[in-house]
């Protein structure tokens, strides 16, 4: 319990200690330090399994309230050396296999002519539409990204390089990214500690923004992914995603569809999607999300079907602070969503109701 609380307590201490008026803090002319965090609590109506928000978490929420599923704290420093060279570092504390803070990002960027830029180091793995800000609760309307889609990629950062191109074509703002590198992830799957080694990763992404619309297409490929613990051969992994978002300031509608295809025996092949919508009434934003994961291919049972409906409310309570509550009806089995599953729960696969509350802040 004490271990579970530590990120939450750290976040809370920092949030309370920081003056409410604090925004990104400029240190001298070249360095900006900013941070984000979430203090969250979650409870379900079933003790047979623990719900988690990340494959890297080896415990989660059941009938006793859990503070570690969503709580996290991030600190970021942006250093601008000149108009060409800059660097970004981000430290993140959240519940993963270890509760120690990790260097989530640390990269240098060079702005090249004609809208190109080059990044080298550790940076976000652009597998989803909101991969880049998944940990930043304050930036999102929902309490947490739908796990049926967002839990599918066990890594959130990679080490390597990325070439980015930005251009404005009439009313359309275009961003294209090509990335290559490697990453490794320690996860917990079906009661087993598993290491997934993406020795070679390459990813292509295209983002088109016009007016209130955003369209995102992306594919991440990893040949010969090594997965420990299940006696699987190295798998060629291909993960494709399409996302659309509409936000006119009052109405928000967004959805993503992702497909995973692997080489034989393709135990993790799946299709998944979510659709989420919210309406802003001043500082209040009620929202609803439906999400679904459908196994494809050999159906070895490693990725069982999940179906989740959620309703929630975001309240912009004060400057830089949002308070959220979310209720979920979860129809899922062991796999991505649950950890520490009892045999009875695995056999019965009951529908679970879950309630989460969170305070998101930025400073």
């Amino acid at each position, binding site marked *: 319990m004490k271990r579970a609380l530590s990120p939450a307590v750290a976040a809370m201490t920092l949030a309370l200690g920081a003056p409410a008026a604090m925004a990104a803090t400029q240190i001298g002319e070249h360095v900006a330090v*900013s941070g984000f965090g979430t203090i969250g609590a979650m409870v379900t109506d079933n003790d047979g399994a623990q719900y988690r928000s990340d494959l890297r978490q080896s415990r989660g929420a059941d009938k006793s309230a859990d503070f570690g599923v969503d709580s996290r704290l991030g600190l970021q420093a942006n250093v601008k050396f000149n108009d060409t060279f800059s660097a970004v570092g981000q430290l993140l504390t959240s519940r993963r296999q270890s509760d120690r803070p990790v260097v989530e990002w640390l*990269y240098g960027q060079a702005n090249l002519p004609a809208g190109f830029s080059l990044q080298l180091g550790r940076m976000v793995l652009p597998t989803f539409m909101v991969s880049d800000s998944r940990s930043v609760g304050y930036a999102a309307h929902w309490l947490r990204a739908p796990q049926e889609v967002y839990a599918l990629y066990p890594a959130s950062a990679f080490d390597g390089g990325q070439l980015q191109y930005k251009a404005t074509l009439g009313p359309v703002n275009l961003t294209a990214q090509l990335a290559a590198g490697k990453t490794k992830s320690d996860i917990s799957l079906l009661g087993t500690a598993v290491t997934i080694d993406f020795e070679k990763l390459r990813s292509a992404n295209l983002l088109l923004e016009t007016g209130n619309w955003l369209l995102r297409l992306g594919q991440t490929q990893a040949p010969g992914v090594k997965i420990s613990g299940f006696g699987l051969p190295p798998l060629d992994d291909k993960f494709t995603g399409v996302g659309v978002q509409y936000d006119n300031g009052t109405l928000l509608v967004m959805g993503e569809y992702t497909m995973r295809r692997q080489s034989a025996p393709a135990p993790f092949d799946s299709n998944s999607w979510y659709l989420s919508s919210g309406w802003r009434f001043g500082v209040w934003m009620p929202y609803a999300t439906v999400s679904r994961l459908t196994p494809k291919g050999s159906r070895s049972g490693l990725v069982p079907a999940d179906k989740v409906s959620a309703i929630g409310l975001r309240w912009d309570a004060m400057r830089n602070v949002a308070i959220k509550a979310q209720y979920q009806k979860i129809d899922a089995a062991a796999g991505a969503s649950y950890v520490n599953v009892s045999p009875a729960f695995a056999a019965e696969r009951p529908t679970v109701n879950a309630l989460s509350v969170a305070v998101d802040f930025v400073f």
Partner: protein
Amino acid sequence: MKLHAFAAGLALALGSLGAAAAGIAVIGHPGAAAMSKEQIADVYLGKSQAATPLDQPESAPIRADFYTKATSRDLAQVKATWSRLTFSGKGQPPKELPDAAAVKKAVAADPKAIGYIDKAAVDASVKVLLSLD
């Protein structure tokens, strides 16, 4: 009771009308080209790097008024948008200057900078790129 509420509502409506009547000017360097509302919104929401946006302090009423008119978003939504960009390393929010005079001075000195000030404060040192009424 009902009358009171009505009167308060009317006063509020007239008050906001009064504020709106003053109008906001989006200003740029004298050599800059005019911009559309969509282009201004893209720059201030971090979607476009076509110009360098400047902000007035959060305590200044013109800031909320500007974002409502230019982007249809309130300050909390704008903050959420920028926190997404900041914490993905994709950009830093507009630089905040202490007042309209400082915005005007910065815009006059930088061909890429844009800002917003009360129309009444516009002078020959800057160019009005767009009027928001």
